[in-house]
C-alpha cells in the first residue's frame, strides 16, 4: 500500500481494478485506475462508452452490481482531519460503507426520473436521506427537506415535497436528486453523467447549479461524463479514460490546449466546435470503440492510434508517464519525459527517436 501523497487529496484511488465475471468470461471493466480528487475541486472523468468511467465511480461507493467486483486497488478516503481509510476494504453491505454513502460521499445518477421511486413522494425520499445521516425528527427533517429543495432552485418547495417523480420534469427530478445528495452535507459529490438524459437548456442549468453549490459548500465533485463540452465548463482537473485505463490526467486547460496522449488529441479533434462554421471537416479516429471484453493487447488504443509503433504498442502495456506537475500520460511517446523534467512541453516528435 501507498500512503496518500498530496495532503489536500480528499479521495485517492490507486490501482483500482473492477472486473465483471460473466459467463462468457471476465470483462476487465476497470483495469488499474488511479486518480486523485483534491479537496474543493471538480475532477472530470471523461471517456466513451465502455471506458469504465461509471464503473470507477460506482466502485468508490461499493455500488458495482453483480457479477462485478472490485478485485484490486485502494480507495483512500480522508475524512476531515482524520487518517485516510481504504473504502475498498469496506464490504459493499457493511455498516461503515453505509455511513459513507450519502453522508460523506453522495452520488447523482444519469436517469433522474428512474432514480426516484414512483411509489413514494419526493419529500418522503428526501426526508429518508436526511434522517439516515442526521439525528432529526420527522418535522425537522421535513423543514430541512424544503430548505434543500429551495437551495437547488425548486420553486414552491413545500408543495413539491408531496409530488411524485412522475409529476416532475427530468430537470426537476435531477434537482431533487441533487437535493437528496446534499442532504447530509457531503464532502464529495459523485455525479455520474447527471445531464446526459437532459435537454441542452436543462443541462446548462444543472451544471450551473452544481457549480454554485460547490462554491457555496466547498465540497469536491467527481464528475463523470462523455461530453468534452461539459468537461470544459465544469472541470478543474480532467481524467481521460479509454477501455478501463486512465490514458491521461491533468489540469483542464492543459488537457484542452496541450493534450499529450494521442487519444485525447484525437478525441478533441473529432468534436465539432461551435462557431467554426459549416463544412468543417472533422478529424476522425479510425475503427470503433472495442467492447471491453475484447480489449486489444498492449496499449488498448493502439489499433486506432495514428502514432502507434508496431512491435511496441501492440505488445507491452504503455508506461504511465509523468509529463508535468500533476499530469500523466499513459503512452510510450512520453517514455523519456520523466528524465527530461517537469516542463511537460516535450512534443511527441522529439521522443520518437
Amino acid at each position: 500500500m501507498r500512503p496518500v501523497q498530496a495532503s489536500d487529496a480528499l479521495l485517492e484511488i490507486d490501482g483500482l481494478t473492477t472486473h465483471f465475471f460473466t459467463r462468457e468470461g471476465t470483462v476487465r471493466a476497470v483495469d488499474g485506475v488511479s486518480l486523485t480528487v483534491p479537496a474543493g475541486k471538480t475532477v472530470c472523468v471523461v471517456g466513451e462508452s465502455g471506458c469504465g468511467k461509471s464503473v470507477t465511480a460506482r466502485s468508490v461507493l461499493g455500488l458495482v452490481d453483480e457479477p462485478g467486483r472490485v478485485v484490486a486497488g485502494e480507495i483512500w478516503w480522508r475524512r476531515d482531519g482524520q487518517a485516510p481509510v481504504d473504502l475498498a476494504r469496506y464490504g459493499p453491505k457493511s455498516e461503515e460503507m453505509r455511513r459513507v454513502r450519502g453522508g460523506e460521499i453522495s452520488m447523482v445518477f444519469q436517469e433522474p426520473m428512474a432514480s426516484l421511486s414512483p411509489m413514494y413522494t419526493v419529500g418522503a425520499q428526501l426526508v429518508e436521506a436526511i434522517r439516515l445521516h442526521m439525528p432529526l425528527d420527522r418535522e425537522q427533517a421535513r423543514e430541512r427537506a424544503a430548505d434543500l429543495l429551495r437551495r437547488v432552485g425548486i420553486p414552491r418547495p413545500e408543495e413539491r415535497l408531496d409530488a411524485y417523480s412522475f409529476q416532475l420534469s427530468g430537470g426537476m427530478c435531477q434537482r431533487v436528486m441533487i437535493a437528496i445528495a446534499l442532504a447530509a452535507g457531503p464532502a464529495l459529490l459523485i455525479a455520474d453523467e447527471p445531464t446526459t438524459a437532459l435537454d441542452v437548456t436543462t443541462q446548462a442549468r444543472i451544471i450551473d447549479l452544481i457549480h454554485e453549490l460547490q462554491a457555496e459548500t466547498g465540497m469536491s465533485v467527481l464528475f463523470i461524463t462523455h461530453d468534452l463540452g461539459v468537461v470544459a465548463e465544469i472541470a478543474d482537473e480532467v481524467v481521460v479514460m479509454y477501455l478501463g485505463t486512465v490514458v491521461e490526467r491533468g489540469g483542464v486547460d492543459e488537457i484542452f490546449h496541450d493534450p499529450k496522449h494521442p487519444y485525447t488529441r484525437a478525441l478533441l479533434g473529432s468534436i465539432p466546435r461551435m462557431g467554426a462554421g459549416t463544412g468543417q471537416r472533422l478529424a476522425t479516429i479510425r475503427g470503433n470503440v472495442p467492447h471491453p471484453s475484447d480489449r486489444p493487447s498492449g496499449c488498448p488504443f493502439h489499433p486506432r492510434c495514428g502514432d502507434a509503433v508496431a512491435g511496441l504498442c501492440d505488445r507491452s502495456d504503455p508506461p504511465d508517464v509523468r509529463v508535468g506537475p500533476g499530469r500523466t500520460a499513459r503512452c510510450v511517446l512520453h517514455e523519456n519525459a520523466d528524465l527530461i523534467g517537469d516542463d511537460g512541453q516535450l512534443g511527441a516528435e522529439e521522443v520518437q527517436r
Partner: protein
Amino acid sequence: MTMPILDVRDLKVHFPVKAGFIGRTVGHVRAVDGVDLTIQPGETLGLVGESGCGKTTLGRSISRIIKPSTGMIGYRGTDGTVTDLAALRERELRPFQRQIRVVFQDPFSSLNPRMTLRQIVGEPLRANGIATGSELEDRVADMLARVGLSPKYMDRYPHAFSGGERQRVNIARALILGPRLVIADEPVSALDVSVRAQILNLLRDLQEEFSLTFLFVSHDLSVVESVCDRVAVMYLGKIVELAETAELYASPRHPYTEALLSAVPRPDPRLRDVGRRVRLTDDLPDPSNPPAGCYFHTRCPYAVAGVCDVSGQGPVLDGIGPGHHAACLRSDELSLAGVASELA
C-alpha cells in the same frame, strides 16, 4: 433562385389524447402545429430544438411514417412536377418513398436482427422490384463498400457489428435506391464521439457523390452547425427561427435560439466565463395546452406582459433579412447574442 425540392405548407400533426372505455378524444397534442418550410436541392437543412418540440414528428410526417393532420408537403420531382405527399394514399406514395429515404437514430433497433446485411440493404431493391439475384448482390456489395463496410461481411447479422458500423448499414440501406432527399433523424446521437465524426464525414461525402439533399434532425447544435447549410429552430410544434447557419449562429433573432446557443457547452475551458449566459426555466409547457400568445413567453427572458401573452396574437414566422426568418413579436427591439462573436 432554384425551385425547392420540398415545400411544406402549414403542416399540422395532431395526436389525439384519448380517454375512457371507448377511447373518446379529449384533446390534441399539437406535435407539429403549422409549419412552413422549404428545402432547396443539394442543401442540408438542420432542424433543432429540445426534446418534445416536434422535430422528429415533422421529419416523420414528411417521410409519411406518420400521416399529417392537415397541410401540404409539396415534393418536386425530377421532371419538375410538384406532388402533395400529404394527400397521397399509401399505395400512391410508393414511388416517392423511393426518392425520400430515412436514416433512423437508433442503430440497434433500426436493423432487423434476423436478417443479414445482404437482406437488409437489399430489401428496398427487392421490394421495389429493381434487382434480384446476383444483380442485387452486386449492388448491395457496391453500396456497402461506399459506406465503408467490407462486402465480405454481407452474410453477417447486425448483432456482429458496432453502433457506428450499423449506422453505416442504415445509410447504405437508405441510399441504395438512389434517393434525392434523405431525412436523417438524429443519425449520430447514439454514437460514441470518436465514431460520430466518421459518420458525419461519410454523410458529407455521400452528399457530394450522390448530390443528395438532407433534412438533418438533431438536438446537438454543434453537430448541426458543422453539417447544415440552413437551420430551422423548433419550439412547441412551430418553427421559431430559420436562417443560414452562419447567420443564425452569429446573430440569432429569436430569444429561444439565443438561449439554445448559449446553453451548448463549449469544449474550451478558456471560454468558460466569456459571453452572455441565457438560462431558461426547465418547464416545457404542455403541448396539448400551449400558452396563449407567443408559445415561448412563459420561459422567455424578454417577454413583456400585455404584448407576448395576448391570446390570438402569437408571432408569425416573418422574413427579417435575406433568408432569415424569425417568429418573435419583439425581434426588432432585441439585440441577441450569438456564438461567433465570442470566439477568440
